[in-house]
């Protein structure tokens, strides 16, 4: 639902129903939006007899907040605060190694493509001569 609101900018319950949430009941959608509003994720303004809902936070801000919450939970979960932190550094390190491997492969593929193109161009020039 948040994805739909981020994409549209704002919407009423009726507009969301018409844009891909036909399977949900009107009241279900309304209740969910109301809960999101009460959680502070949406703002709303009256429009006729309905409400128009807008996301209060961007996708990036929400992800950042979720990450912050998860990290805080992780750090609070252990009596020794260094332990989860060292796990975190380890995980980030593993992610980095994987990412660098992927980037390395991309670079090698691009280099191969460029060399092949160059060889093909040279071959065509020699054939022409």
């Amino acid at each position, binding site marked *: 639902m948040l994805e739909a609101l981020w994409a549209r900018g704002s919407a009423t319950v009726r507009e969301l129903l018409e844009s891909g949430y036909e399977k949900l009941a009107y009241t279900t959608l309304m209740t969910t939006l109301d809960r999101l509003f009460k959680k502070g994720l949406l703002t709303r303004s009256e429009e006729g007899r309905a409400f128009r809902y807008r996301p209060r936070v961007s996708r990036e801000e929400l992800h950042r907040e979720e990450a912050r919450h998860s990290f805080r939970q992780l750090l609070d979960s252990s009596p020794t605060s260094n332990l989860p932190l060292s796990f975190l550094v380890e995980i980030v390190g593993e992610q980095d190694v994987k990412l*660098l491997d992927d980037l*390395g492969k*991309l670079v090698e593929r691009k*280099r191969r493509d*460029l060399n092949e193109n160059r060889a093909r161009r040279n071959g065509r020039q020699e054939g022409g001569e």
Partner: protein
Amino acid sequence: MFFLRGFLVSCSMAVIMYVGLSAIIGAASSMALRVAARGSAKSGADFLFLMRLSPLLFAMLVTVAFVVPSFLLLEPQHAIEPFGFGPLLLSIAGFLGVAWGLGNGVGALRRADRQIRAWTITASSFEIQPRGAFLLVSRAADVPPLAAAGILKPKILVARETESVLNERELRCALRHEREHVRRHDNLRKLLLRLIPFPGTGTLEQAWREASEMAADDAAVSNASEAVDLAAALVKLSRSVSLQPPAELTTALVHSPASAVNSRVERLLAWKEPARPRWSHRFLLSCSITAVVLTAVASVYPQTLFFVHSATEWLVR
């Protein structure tokens, strides 16, 4: 007394303008980032840096061009007027701000100096052709893989392993990247930012640092093959970087975890011939805008002085 009052009033006005504009610039960071992303990395970096400096430049310009002349010309020298505490407090706040900035800058300079001395204590210099104006390359044991360090005469430092990790083409591209940082005086710019700290402008400064890295990447490559060489250098050197903050007042080819070089590598792999900037049009446009602004300022200068003087009168009372 007259000159002391003039000095305090000028300082207070400069402080008000600097703080107000800095707060606005800090709040409008995301908008500035969007504008900077529209052009090339170089123009984006220049724009972001100018935005960050603009409160200081504007405050200084308005103070020198309007506040001081309006006080000297329109304030009666021998009049005895009540003088509130406002200008005094604002001036003190301004001086404290300047002292804080200077302390920040001097501290950063000292730390950078210590770091460079530690890095270069066992360094030996060597040359790689073509030799640039500042391309004194030193080899040291524990420096970042490749860095430009120093403010006035920056040195390009290459760690011993870097030479063996990179092939010749990759090393040349990487050195050109650092030479561009030296040419653009990026370390000096970092020092300037240290001198004018202001809460809420961190996003803008971080965006400038990223844009300046990309601008140096762009300047270091002139075809797709060189772009791939630089991307390869970034990936190879990122493997040897540990998670630690970059050294003070130093630009390094890689100084952050892999996720930060991801966008630079992808950008280099999608390298395309940059469009030639239309300098004649830009130059004409800049000249026209400058001429219009100067004419407008000149035509309303006397009225502006009166307005500024009224504002300073209000401040004094």
